[in-house]
């Protein structure tokens, strides 16, 4: 078995491995199809006979059973307790652990965050100061307005939720803020990239947001990643007027401009890496699939 140059498909390799290791077919490791034969349920004679498992007299033997839950007249349990839907649908609600602007400023000042590069969820998780567990319905970070007045950092930041004041605070200092959605597998890859690369899986394709989040992420007011960039520019201007600051011109600093304008594709997870690529840190190489179907899947 060779490396990249081998044209044998991975699926066949797996199949052959299986064939080599599975045991010989025998009566002990095969079974009939699910409904090939019916099991005899009724006790007909000998020890399934006489009372046929129905006992003596009573509603049991006479096959006149009470309905399930009935408690011979008193108010049954399933009717006693009234419905109290306080937590209805709580398992479907998405959570966004907060990061305050004060914390962000501290991170920038202490050098834990590099403002010369875009800040996204990976960068925030790499500081090891914030934990994210997608399996507990946490879908990313929200930027809160604590420390809003003293925020002076100029950043290109991507979070999952930010209120209007926070957006204004970032833009007032010449920064760029975007709100983006990541599905659970993408989040797991993002929060610990080294561990993800060590698993040997190709970079997954980011999914579209669920229906109840589409409106938020397509709205230029929220600087959604699916919104029209022209409308976002308009909203920037409007916000500046609303909060009474002069909108800084991003083009004044041409060195930082490309970094400031750098945004991810809706299907992209890591900057500079496409979905479907296999990153190998040992050989310092990136591998791409050649199969058309796979390519089609990852490009769609």
């Amino acid at each position, binding site marked *: *078995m*060779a*490396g*990249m140059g*081998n044209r*044998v*498909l*991975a*699926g066949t*390799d*797996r199949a052959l*491995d299986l064939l080599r*290791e599975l045991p010989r077919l025998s009566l002990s490791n095969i079974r009939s199809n699910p409904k090939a034969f019916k099991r005899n349920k009724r006790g007909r004679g000998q020890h399934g006979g006489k009372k046929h498992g129905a006992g003596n007299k009573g509603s049991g033997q006479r096959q006149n059973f009470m309905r399930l839950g009935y408690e011979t007249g008193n108010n049954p349990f399933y009717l006693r307790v009234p419905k109290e839907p306080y937590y209805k649908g709580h398992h479907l609600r998405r959570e966004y652990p907060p990061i305050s602007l004060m914390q962000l400023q501290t991170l920038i000042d202490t050098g834990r965050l590099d403002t010369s590069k875009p800040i996204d969820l990976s960068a925030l998780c790499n500081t090891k100061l914030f934990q994210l567990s997608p399996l507990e319905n946490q879908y990313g970070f929200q930027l809160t307005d604590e420390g809003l007045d003293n925020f002076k950092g100029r950043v290109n930041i991507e979070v999952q939720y930010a209120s209007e004041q926070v957006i204004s605070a970032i833009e007032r200092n010449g920064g760029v803020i975007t709100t983006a959605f990541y599905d659970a597998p993408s989040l797991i890859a993002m929060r610990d990239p080294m561990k993800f*690369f*060590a*698993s*040997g*899986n*190709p970079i997954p394709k980011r*999914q*579209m947001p669920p*229906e109840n989040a*589409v*409106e938020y992420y*397509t709205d230029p007011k929220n600087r959604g990643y*699916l919104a029209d960039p022209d409308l976002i520019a308009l909203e920037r201007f409007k916000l500046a007027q609303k909060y009474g600051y002069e909108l800084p011109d991003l083009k004044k600093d041409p060195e930082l401009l490309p970094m400031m304008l750098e945004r991810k594709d809706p299907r992209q997870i890591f900057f500079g890496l496409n979905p*479907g690529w*296999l990153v*190998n*840190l*040992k*050989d310092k*190489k990136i*591998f791409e*699939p050649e*199969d058309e*179907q*796979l390519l089609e*899947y990852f490009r769609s």
Partner: protein
Amino acid sequence: MHFTPPGERFVKRTFSSASNIYVANQIRQSVQNKVKEMANITRALHTSFTKSIGNSKTTSKILSIPFNRFASTDISSTTELAEQEVLNEKQLAAAALEAKRNKSRLKPRHYKILHGQMQVDPQNPEFPYEKTVKFRRKLIAQHGLATGINLGIAWSTKEELQEKTEYEKVAHPFTLQQIVEQKKKLREEEMKKIETRQKDIELKMGKLALWMKELKDRQEKKEAVVRAAQEKKDILIEEVRQHFGYVVSMKDPKFQEMLEQKEKEAKKAGKEMKKKVRVEKATSKALAQAEAVSTGKEIKME
């Protein structure tokens, strides 16, 4: 445990220990001779080998050859095989040296993991988990192309891809544009509803003053009727009280008699009034006629 020389160890595998000591000794002798032969050959080869290499880093010292009891004792005297044997023996010697140096008492697998070496042989898997796709992917991630595993296992098979696409279709039945349109429509409908309701309310607010007035009038009417009846009653009671000297109950028969009397009187009075009115009318009419005649005559006279 007494020391058994190497030849005897080999012999004891095939012969029973007790009886054939003489035989064993003979065999041992022959084996030892063979070993000496091997040593001589390798010595000669070693010197020739070093000469052919020239500036090699090999030492001129002759290595001690450990007796390998699993090696075949009949030696074919081709030089290639001998050279290979020399190399193998070198490697063996080096490995033996390393084994002596390694005091960690770690299992070989663990030692390798610690030193970042491949702890498994992908071609000869020892445990079942080494054959799983998940493990092999991790192995590739750790050791790269050196594993010799087909990199294609990292991506999904055709069936898995089909399943994925199907799942995505079911999870996201609509495209982004479709959802955006749907939401737009929803919001528009909501706004419409609110607007129509607001308009309706405005209209009704305009009519509110009128309705209030009407309601008040209706209420006042009812009240007036009730008040009038009450007042009538009070007057009657007062009159009856005046007559009798005390407040007579409405249900008392005296009260009823009084009422009847009153009615009669009222009727009478009414009749008289009518008569009066009739008489007055008549007289006034007559007077008027008379006047008219007189005036008429006067006119004629003139």
